[in-house]
């Protein structure tokens, strides 16, 4: 599969739009899964999928076949997801500081659509207690911890691959995962009845 992907990348670089479409079709679902796990939000995950491929397209010349194409895409998707998470946090902090800063009613309407603090019908459809608790626990991870954990736990990348693709090295990645697991245990063990 990766040989085929490599060939498609080469053809896409040479100007073959069908080759890039093939890559989009092949990787969209896995990028969506990753993005949803990173952001915990369907609309953001859709944005991440689109932005990932737009960025990948622009940066095709920078892709080096040392890592697999899917790992490279994961890296782009992870970084963009982290940007979204950070922006959302900053935005929510500002919102919490007081809605006085928001000038007009229509602005507040727009921002209410954006912030999604209150679960809408779409969110509620997937909003089991477990998922909410897992999302809360994931939200408590630092950006680095969350990235490393999601890539290791959900996407099955090895610690070495994660370290290489994020440029953090294997040791730092390992410790990010350890810290992530510790925090998850602290938050989720009461839920699973294994309080220590």
């Amino acid at each position: 599969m990766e040989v085929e992907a490599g060939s498609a990348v080469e053809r896409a670089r040479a100007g073959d739009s069908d080759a890039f479409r093939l890559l989009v079709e092949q990787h969209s679902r896995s990028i969506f899964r990753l993005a949803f796990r990173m952001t915990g939000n369907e609309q953001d995950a859709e944005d991440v999928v689109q932005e990932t491929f737009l960025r990948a397209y622009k940066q095709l010349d920078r892709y080096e076949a040392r890592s697999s194409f899917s790992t490279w895409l994961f890296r782009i998707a992870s970084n963009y997801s982290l940007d979204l998470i950070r922006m959302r946090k900053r935005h929510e902090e500002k919102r919490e500081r007081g809605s006085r800063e928001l000038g007009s009613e229509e602005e507040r309407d727009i921002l209410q659509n954006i912030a999604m603090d209150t679960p809408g019908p779409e969110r509620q459809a997937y909003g089991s207690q477990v998922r909410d608790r897992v999302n809360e626990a994931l939200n408590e991870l630092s950006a680095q911890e969350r990235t490393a954990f999601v890539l290791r736990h959900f996407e099955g990348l090895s610690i070495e691959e994660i370290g290489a693709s994020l440029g953090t090295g294997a040791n730092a990645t390992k410790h990010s995962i350890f810290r992530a697991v510790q925090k998850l245990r602290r938050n989720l063990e009461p839920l699973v009845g294994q309080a220590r």
Partner: protein
Amino acid sequence: MNHVSEEQLVLLYYGESAEAGAIDQHLGECEACRTEFRALQLVLNTVDSAPVPDRDADYGQQVWQRIEKRIGHRIGKRKTRLFAQWWIWAPAMSALLVGAFFIGRITHKQATTEVAKNQQIRERILMVAVGDHLERSQMVLAELTNAPDHQGKLDISDERQMASELLDDNRLYRQTARTAGNTAVANVLDDLERVLLEIAHSPTEVSSGQLDDLRQQIESRGLLFKVRVMGTKAREPQSAPAKNNDKKL
């Protein structure tokens, strides 16, 4: 063997332990470590149980359809070439659409019902045009907001050029929206214009501090989010024109 540490158990769980054999053997003999490992497994398996919304089998094709227009068909061409294509057709298209908007205003005033119907069509035409405009603007804002941290100077000449080109369209749409009484759209375009102006007047290469200033302006009023939400809503084909324009977006 001493008791197994949490780190060793985590590596074992993920199949990355270099001492898996010895740890397995220890777990067979040590109740305390076995309990510890079970607790770890339980939590990590619980994390697994969080569902991810499913996507159709043709999801990849849907994604391609959404991005195809933005990518264009010239894979491998330089980004500036791609942008140059926009600048050729975008102003002409926007002038055409806004022209259609005003012509619609002038020529359809006979019957009340027809006026209402045409009003809806005009609003739709405006929203399609604004949606495309916001999509292009979003790309500029996102490029700057998500630019990697850097030590030296960062070349933003593409974004600068795009912002400069978008400004003319933005003024046109803002005035049109204001005239049409769509203050929600007009207000966002007003905010957007200030930021586009700032970007267009920035140097070709910016320092980290200058980039931070631009980012702060983009983020200070949640502009990127507003542009994204409004752009998405404007492009929704199913969205019927609202009776109250201000609440529509």
